[in-house]
Structure formats: C-alpha cells, structure tokens
C-alpha cells in the first residue's frame, strides 16, 4: 500500500516532470526513490518535481532527494521543486534544505530556469 501517487510526464527529451500526490513517509519514500532513480538514469537535463498536491514529507523522503545531489551535479542535471505548500516547506526550511535545493513558486518559474546547478 502506498499513500503517494507519482505521475511521470516526459515533456521533451530534456525535461521530465514527477507529479507527487499524497504523503511521502518512510514507507512511500521507497517509491519516490525508484521514480527519481529512473528519471536520473533517463539523461534529462532537468527534472521538475511538482509538489502542488504533496501533503506531507518525512525525513526519509527528504533523504531521497539529498542522496541524488552529488549524482545530479556530476551529470549536470538540474532538479527543481515547485508548488510546495507552506507546511511542507517548513520541513525543508528546518533542515536548511531550502537554501541548497532549487525551490520555486510554480511550473512556469521552474521552466524559466536553465542549468544552474543544485546548490
């Protein structure tokens, strides 16, 4: 059973979007890891994470994102999160991750970003 729904949208050969809906707890973070791994292996320049319908993220979920930072940097892939609710953003903030991850307001702002690295 997973309380997270992940929809994968390949927008172009350079851009993939993962739409998250629900909760990323310790159990469902395994699913996020698999989808993110596939996206990283897919050789896209940009991976956008649509958090508009993300209700909750645990430290295990954050751990998934952070575990790819080095690989993303090496492969020159930009990971951008957008549409994060205030309550969810607070968790990124507590851990200082809001400073080192690319977090923007909406999809348009995310699409306007070219390669800028991940920290």
């Amino acid at each position, binding site marked *: 059973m997973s309380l997270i729904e992940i929809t994968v949208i390949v927008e172009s050969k350079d851009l993939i979007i993962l739409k998250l809906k629900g909760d990323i*707890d310790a*159990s469902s973070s395994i699913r996020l890891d698999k989808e993110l791994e596939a996206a990283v292996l897919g050789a896209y320049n940009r991976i956008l994470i649509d958090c508009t319908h993300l209700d909750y993220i645990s430290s295990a979920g*954050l751990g998934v994102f952070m575990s790819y930072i080095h690989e993303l940097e090496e492969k020159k892939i930009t990971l951008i999160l957008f549409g994060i609710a205030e309550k969810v953003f607070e968790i990124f903030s507590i851990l200082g991750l809001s400073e080192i991850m690319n977090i923007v307001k909406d999809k348009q702002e995310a699409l306007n970003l070219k390669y800028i690295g991940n920290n």
Partner: protein
Amino acid sequence: MAEFNIQIPSIIENIRVIESFIDNVKDKVHITDDIYGNIMISVTESVTNAIKHGNKEDSKKTVTLNLKVEGKNLHFSVEDQGEGFNHEILPDPTAPENLEKTSGRGIFIIKSLCDDVSFENEGRKVNLTFVTA
C-alpha cells in the same frame, strides 16, 4: 487523565497504523491543525527511527507508542527493543559533510517541532511533549 497505547511489529508499512492512531487522537483531543501537523511529523519520525534504527526492521520486535493527555499537555513516548543509542553525539544533518546522507534528519526535525524532547532507557525510549494551548 486519558491514556492511549498501541504496539506494532517493526515493519515499515506499519507507519500507516501510527498515522491512523494520530488521526483518531485528533478526534478525541482538541488540537489545532498546526499542532496536529507537528505531532504527525514528530511521532511518525520517532516510530520510523524505532523501526529502522532501533529494532532494525526485525518484525519479531515491537515498537510501543503511548499517549498520556494531562490537561493541555500531550505526552507521547515511543519505545523500541533495540540496542539503544547515544542521543548526545548525533551528527548535525545541516553540516555540509552530512547533506547528502539519506538519514540522520529525523531527530533534528523532532527537536524543532516538539515543545520538549527527552530520552530514556539508553535511547530506546523517546518522550515528546506538545502543549496544545
């Protein structure tokens, strides 16, 4: 004073049972959405730690969650059957050398969201207090 108890085998999927437990608490005890959110995050982080790092996902070992309601204070405790740990020497997850690690953030989050956090029984038991008003 009201008291609630739940005991689960150490399987990570059982985190759902804990989430339901906290949902039920919200129906019984008046708490604001903000505090409910902090409780949900902190208690599930504590139980996740107990399952993964305490009991090392051994399904024969259990995690016990207890809640005592004393006036405006909610006292949660989460206890595992593992080897314990020294909570005083935890690495800072915000330090540059720890940023890429997949774990080590749970307790940091818990300490930020609870009104009080303490450890007992060589780290096997964590006590979380929330003041509801």
